[in-house]
């Protein structure tokens, strides 16, 4: 039997299964295209505003900086061994979490400036 014959036979003898098959095929194609488009056009989101659940590790990854350097520069606790969320640090110190954001952002800015200075060929200073 040719493929055409088989298709005709299936439509004749098993219409419901054919309907489900066509639906499944359509969904497959639709989601494949969607996934492909998303994959092609998705860019990892740039650094976003700090949130209370974030840890310095998350911040470090966003800015491609060493989290422990950020801790040191901002005067924040190192993981011992469990990492602290920004909200926890704020709670421990009895300050609003925005104060911690300020410390972190300042440290990030300083470290980024140092990185840029290094990139301009002035060599890394030993700090």
């Amino acid at each position, binding site marked *: 039997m040719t493929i055409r014959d*088989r298709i005709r036979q299936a439509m004749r003898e098993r219409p419901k*299964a054919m309907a489900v*098959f066509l639906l499944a095929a359509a969904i*497959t194609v639709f989601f494949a295209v969607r996934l492909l488009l998303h994959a092609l056009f998705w860019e990892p989101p740039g650094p976003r505003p700090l949130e209370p659940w974030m840890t310095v590790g998350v911040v470090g990854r966003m800015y491609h900086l060493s989290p422990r350097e950020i801790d040191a520069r901002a005067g924040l606790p190192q993981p011992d061994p469990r990492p602290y969320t920004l909200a*926890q640090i704020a709670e421990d110190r009895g300050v609003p979490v925005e104060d911690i954001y300020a410390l972190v952002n300042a440290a990030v800015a300083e470290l980024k400036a140092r990185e840029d200075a290094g990139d301009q060929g002035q060599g890394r200073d030993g700090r």
Partner: protein
Amino acid sequence: MTEWLLSLVPTYGPVLLVVAIFLSCFALPVPASMLLLAAGGFIAAGDLQLVTIAGASFAGLAAGDHSVYVMGRIGGTRLAARLGRRSAPIARARAKLAERGGFFLFLSRWLFSPIAPYVNFAAGAAGLRWLRFLAWGTAGEIVWLAIFITLGYVFAGSLEAASKFAFDAIVLIGAAVLTVALGIWLFGHHKRHPLEDRLSRSS
């Protein structure tokens, strides 16, 4: 709610995952996959260790799945046997599940994970041999954990993007599997029963 969950993950990571995943095996509404996505993200951030998270998650998952299977074996077998005596199709379904259920069990763990608890129970009730359950179940568990931890790692921090991608990918795979299976069944070359030939020729 998501924020609160997220904030617990870096602090209680492994313990939280063991408990949450274990509970989710009993069809309790615990967002286990969300927690895995979050954990993956924190692994990318260096806050959690992959080995610890993978180990803890697997332990909770295996313990939960096997517990449900045992519940099915103990509680469900008698019920299923009684139903089987009354109805031949149920007896046949039960026999099929016991013999060939492995692959479906495997798929249900990661492709249709909301029904995994029920499939695990049914497998126990149908008398699927424990070694088969162990093999197919473990394979499914590993795939499920790998998918969500990896996605969480890749989409570190962007939980919404990660879960959308996971949903799309799972629907795609499920639809593709269904399409291929139906296609083979509908158009595949199979031996036709001689009676079928006679009937269709006369119609």
